[in-house]
């Protein structure tokens, strides 16, 4: 796998993040994804290509449609999740460390 920073870069875009989060609810076709977003269907397709290139999303044929889903084999999504998790956690940790010693712990 060559996924790494691309996954994080791909998710820095709010529309791609919205698409990614919708796919976290289950596999979707392009039309279904576009229906709930304020962007055109071709734009959704373009975003999906980026997500696929970053190893976050895979696709499969279902009759004449293509169904997109989070890539179960890629570590990209897990890495993206943990990256955010630790960034948030360390921000909270920094606040706790810098609280005055008078407060409990």
């Amino acid at each position, binding site marked *: *796998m*060559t*996924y*790494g*920073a691309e996954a*994080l870069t791909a*998710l*820095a875009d709010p529309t791609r*993040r919205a698409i*990614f*989060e919708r796919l*976290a*609810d289950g596999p979707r076709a392009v039309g279904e994804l576009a229906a709930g977003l304020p962007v055109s269907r071709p734009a959704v397709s373009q975003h999906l290509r980026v997500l696929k290139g970053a190893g976050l999303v895979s696709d499969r044929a279902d009759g004449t449609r293509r169904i997109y*889903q*989070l*890539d*179960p*084999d*890629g*570590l990209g*999504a*897990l*890495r*993206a*999740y*943990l*990256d*955010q*998790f*630790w*960034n*948030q*956690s*360390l*921000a*909270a*940790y*920094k*606040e*706790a*460390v*810098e609280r005055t*010693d008078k407060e*409990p*712990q």
Partner: protein
Amino acid sequence: MSTTDTAVHTAVVVDAPIDRAFAVFTDGIGTWWNKDHHILEAPLAEMIFEPHVGGRIIDRGVDGSESSWARVLAYDPPQRLVFSWEISTQWQIETDPEKVSEVEVRFTAEGPARTRVELEHRNLERHGDGWEQMRDSVGSDAGWASGLHGYAAVVGAA
């Protein structure tokens, strides 16, 4: 800092002496850990960090239930800490030692009241290919981060 495919890295600089930085990360873990980030059925009451190699990090619920989700692999205060991450992609305690990842935290004094904290969560590939199941199983409120909403909030904070 380098990034590899099977690890995540992050760092923070805190305005505190190195001893305090280490103590808050370990003994004080319950003061900063997100209270939604546990895999107990009950709400989280407290977190226990056993400060020695072989010690455990334990979440205790308000109903007395416990989940021990990490083992301390290195404990070198105030410079270094390594612990295992024994949470499977099914959001259960991972009992297979081949399938756990690990977290290393290094503390470096940048001044008498300033400390750099670097964190690496590595060996993520050991969790295997079950990320899709992880996604499905966090649909319930019992999942980490109270399910997908919490998950989305975490990812959405990018």
